[in-house]
């Protein structure tokens, strides 16, 4: 007996439905469990919800097609491209980056490479909010990237351009948030919500906050270029998605630094001091007390 041909059922359509529903379910589950924030910036969540609805609708319209004869023979092999991400998405757990993962090809520190050596120029050209976003990470990587002078040049020019285009918008965002940046009993308490804003604020007004008490939570980040008593209680900052996370934080001096294990979460109580690091004046925390603490629920911080 001759087998019933695939032509009579549209296998291709069935496969597509499986793919679409697979992605829709995965997206739905990640949103449901909040894991979505390990992958993308919160502002993308709304779009992902739309995608879920769209995919379900397309699958819905595809269902009748399965039971129609397939008219044109199509090569279903390219659909395999979609299988791999699905398998990966479901099998591999969402994972947060820590300093360990960064060490792979220095994954996420590069950002800084584009703005070293410009701090003075930047200050000279503009005191606007935008470029601060980049400066505060300078501390990590100065030495490494001396070679990239060319690109720095263009970067710094670009930075001044940034100001022209986006000042108003950025300032308004910062203005609207300003009232949230409040000292509690004269101490700056940085938490997940105001982390990036506080960093910008303090870098912008080092003089104003010099000597201020501060409380920071972050994971211990160490680097070869730090002195023995230096570490960073860092947070991972996500600008857009997991492809661009990078550590941010204040350099911190603590005499018992050796006792701190890399990647453990700590709460640092200390004082902000303005000090030189590799030739730049940056805010540094002189730690009085460092205590272990629990990992926060959302371990990334998001600018904007």
């Amino acid at each position: 007996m001759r087998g019933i041909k695939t032509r009579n059922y549209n296998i291709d359509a069935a496969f597509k439905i499986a793919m679409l529903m697979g992605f829709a379910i995965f997206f739905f589950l990640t949103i449901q469990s909040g894991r979505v924030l390990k992958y993308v910036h919160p502002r993308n969540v709304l779009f992902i919800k739309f995608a879920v609805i769209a995919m379900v609708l397309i699958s819905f319209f595809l269902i009748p097609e399965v039971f129609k004869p397939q008219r044109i023979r199509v090569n279903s092999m390219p659909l395999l491209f979609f299988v791999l991400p699905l398998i990966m998405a479901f099998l591999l757990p969402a994972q947060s980056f820590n300093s360990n993962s960064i060490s792979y090809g220095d994954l996420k520190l590069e950002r800084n490479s584009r703005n070293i050596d410009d701090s003075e120029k930047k200050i000279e050209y503009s005191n606007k909010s935008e470029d601060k976003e980049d400066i505060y990470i300078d501390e990590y990587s100065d030495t490494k990237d001396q070679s990239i002078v060319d690109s720095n040049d263009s970067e710094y020019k670009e930075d001044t351009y940034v100001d022209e285009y986006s000042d108003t918008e950025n300032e308004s965002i910062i203005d609207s948030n300003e009232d949230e940046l409040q000292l509690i009993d004269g101490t700056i308490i940085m938490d997940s919500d105001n982390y990036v804003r506080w960093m910008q604020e303090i870098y912008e007004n080092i003089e104003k906050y010099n000597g201020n008490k501060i409380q920071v939570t972050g994971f211990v980040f160490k680097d070869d270029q730090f002195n023995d008593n230096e570490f960073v209680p860092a947070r991972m900052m996500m600008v857009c998605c997991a492809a661009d996370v990078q550590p941010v934080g204040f350099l911190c001096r603590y005499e018992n630094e050796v006792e701190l294990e890399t990647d453990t979460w700590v709460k640092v109580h200390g004082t902000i001091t303005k000090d030189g690091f590799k030739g730049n004046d940056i805010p540094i925390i002189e730690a009085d007390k460092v205590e272990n603490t629990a990992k926060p629920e959302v371990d990334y911080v998001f600018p904007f």
Partner: protein
Amino acid sequence: MKTCVDIITGFLNSGKTTYINELLQDKNLLEDRVVVIQCENGEIGIESAVLKDNIVFINTLEEQKDLDVKYLGDIIDKYLPDRIIIEYNGMLETEKILSLFEKRSVRKKCFIGNIICLVDVSTFEVYMNNLGNILRNQIVLADRVVLNKIANTQEENFKRIEKSIRNLNRNAELFKVPLYDEEFPKKLKIDVDTSSIDKSKFSLKISNIFISIFLMFVIAYFTFSVMRAFKVNVINIDFSEIKIFNMIFISILMQAFPFMLVGMFVSSIMHVFISNETIVKLFPKKFGLGFLTAMFGGLLFPVCECAIVPVTARLVKKGVSLPVAVTFMLSAPIINPIVITSTLYAFPEHPEITIYRIYFGLVIALAVGLILTLFPETKPSLLDEINGLTCDCVYCNLEMNGKQSIGEKIRIMFLHAGEEFFSVGKYFVLGAFLTSLIQTIVPRDIFSELWVRDGLALVVMMAIAFLFSVCSTSDAFIARSFWDRVSTGSIMGFLVFGPMMDVKNLFMLFASFRKSFVIKLVIFITIISFVLLYFLTFLLL
């Protein structure tokens, strides 16, 4: 047992009846009860020699009946055939008979075997010009295309025809027959049995090499997962790298899929609800105004570069001047509102990237258009028939004929969007995969040395854009991941050159335009993009 129905399509005089005669003599059919249904009267009848007891011959024209659900059902009930061969009327839409087989009652009794399309090569071009739609449908739907009467056709001509048929239907078997009528070639083995077995075997093509690499990766990946599950640490592999890769890969997909879907829906809505004629009317014939419309037309006509080539080809065919159409082709994918939005989202803290992208895109598009005006094409740029115009999408190709209700249109709109999602999405998944791989395994030091020089970085980024073929609605997110490593100028290379020219666009261009023109165009675009980006970047950034 269900009846197997073979359908023979083709125009009058293309050799359908001769083919059926031959088919009936096949040894494999000797035992079967066969019903032949003819829907038209050709010059040649079914040979009486062939007529045996187990073959029933019906002509719908003589019986003055339409081939419909009831008629077909009655035939099956009456003769209980093992096989039905339908010689279909060449002037009717093949679509019509296929829709018969969507009915439940028909599906219970029979199934479609092979659809065989006979093409008379000597008249192919005449029919293509006059009855292009019907012929195209016949070819697209066929499992097997028999090229008939090739003896009288020049080699060069024949090659072109063969190519245009291949363009329409990549999967069908092609048979060539020198002169069908006079001497039926015994070379043509009509292997009924194998032809009715599903041909879903893996055929080894070059395109499949990539797939096998992909499969190997999947297998390797599974091995890793299993090993991890059993905590076998025989080989000390660090899985965190795979995890990082996974995170980057999935996150790129997660944020780009929604934008892709928006793009697909918009283009599907336009495709289904707005006719091409309306769009063509929008382009003024006046030269300067034409360029202006072409540059900013994309704002109102939001298609990404994945859909732009067929549109451009159609614009040229409808009389829009070539430079204007090319300008439109280059600028529309960049000035597309969805592209602008996604670029803004990908570089939230650097809105100037979006502005540069639009600016460079428009300047380059205009420059290429003007150069084409200065060096006008002497020969026609389009291929004789615009094969590329048939959309890849199964649904619109077949169902866009005639008027449909709103509900039906919405259904097609969704199906079309889904189809596009998969056809375009695969390029995107591939692009995201490679970027994540680069991000994970290539140490930064290599890049900083390779990409120190702006010029070289620009070339590298343009090459990546070309090879990745990422849809312009989502390429900003991929560009984003290069952000740390290269200068803004090189990012521009990726964002501006990518939508204008990439591998998949190139293939689509070759499908609709003459080869020499495409090569010329590619060279123009590449050189102009590089020079302009290189110098403008210095001036501006």
